[in-house]
């Protein structure tokens, strides 16, 4: 073999970079368990729930995939809405049924999937 002093280390660096998730997950970071779905959701809440604007609550699978669009939609329709008058209502309307805590209902999945938490809480009060 020619130039093995350069080629072998180069190849080793490449293999280390490519397999980064494998050795990093097993040796460096502690991979947590996947968060439970719908923590603390009361069974009677599953059916017939509605949003403050009267819209029907979509099924769980659809919410999981599209909740950001749904929330964005509510946010846009509620533009003229006086949040100060209603206190914490907008954010509490999700959390009232879903566990009542941002950490449990929002952050558990967002942290697991490394998705940035949106800036809801810069305006809305944290429940």
């Amino acid at each position, binding site marked *: 073999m020619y130039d093995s002093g350069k080629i072998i280390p180069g190849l080793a660096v490449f293999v280390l970079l490519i397999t980064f998730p494998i050795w990093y997950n*097993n040796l460096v970071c502690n991979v947590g368990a996947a968060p439970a779905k719908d923590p603390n959701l009361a069974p009677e809440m599953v059916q017939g729930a509605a949003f403050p604007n009267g819209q029907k609550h979509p099924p769980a699978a659809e919410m999981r995939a*599209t909740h950001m669009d749904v929330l964005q939609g509510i946010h846009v329709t509620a533009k003229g809405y006086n949040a100060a008058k209603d206190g914490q209502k907008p954010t509490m309307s999700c959390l009232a049924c879903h566990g009542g805590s941002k950490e449990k209902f929002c952050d558990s999945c967002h942290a697991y999937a490394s998705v940035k938490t949106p800036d809801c809480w810069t305006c809305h009060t944290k429940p």
Partner: protein
Amino acid sequence: MKHTFPLVAVIALALIAWIGSNIPGMQYLFGVAVPYAALILFVGGFCWRVLDWAKSPVPFHIPTTCGQGYSMPWVKRDKFEAPVSTGEVLGRMFMEIALFRSLWRNTKASIKPGPELTYTSTRWLWLFGILFHYSMLVILLRHFRLFVGSELFFVTALEAIDGFTLNPTPELSLYVTDALILVGLVALLARRFLIKTVNYISLANDYFPLFLLIGIALTGILMRYFLRSGVDIVAIKQLALGLTTFKPVVPPDIASIFYVHLFLVSCLLAYFPFSKLMHMGGVFLSPTRNLANDSRMRRHVNPWNPDIRPHSYASYEDEFRADMIEQGIPVEKELPQG
């Protein structure tokens, strides 16, 4: 034919994954077995190809130069186009690998009225090549958020930069690289159809990676922006983390489009080491780029040269003297008397 067959092959691969992942029990095959096999083929095949190249001798010292080489001290030389030291070679290699310098130098010959032969720079290939490669790199690095169990600084940074078009909710923002990779790929494909000379030399194995990459980009874009239902990020991350920690789990109810995406990526990985895509490793090992232009300073010996001993006329005559005298050929030294 040379473009129809690869297109049909990519569509067939997508259909295999789409139909297959809908058969109960087959999710394990498409979600676990195929990705593992593809990764083994990719890493193993890549190392095998590189080691195979490392075993091949470089018979001649063949750097390509395109600037004034080292000569007299008062002749201004071009350090990066005709490098003589290791540092200069590193600079040249960096510009080649990170900036695609040889594509940047591309020229096009045309005949103007006169007739006059003129050369003009054409950098379209450079532009679309670099758009594709860097978009691909950013997208690959962004995918680490699905494969790694903790937040990575470079993923967070890339998501912020890449998603600058912003929308207040980052999940909805358009990633610029998602659009640019398609622009790059479609332009590289269009080039093979529209430029007559390029079309003539294009083969099925030029079209196949392009169609495959377009398929991967399209399924990814569809999943992120359009067909979101059934694309549960938590379930997908569970699958990805399971693969990396060797405790594979297949969460139920992941949409077929995800399996199509994963299967096409697996095909790309498995195909990679045995195709032209190996230029990723090959660019580091191309003798025309990585040798210094120092053939007048250092002697390059062909490693496969046979061992040829010098054979002087005197020793030649010693060997054949008797025969030469017999044939009447004059000799410098007669046969010893006696």
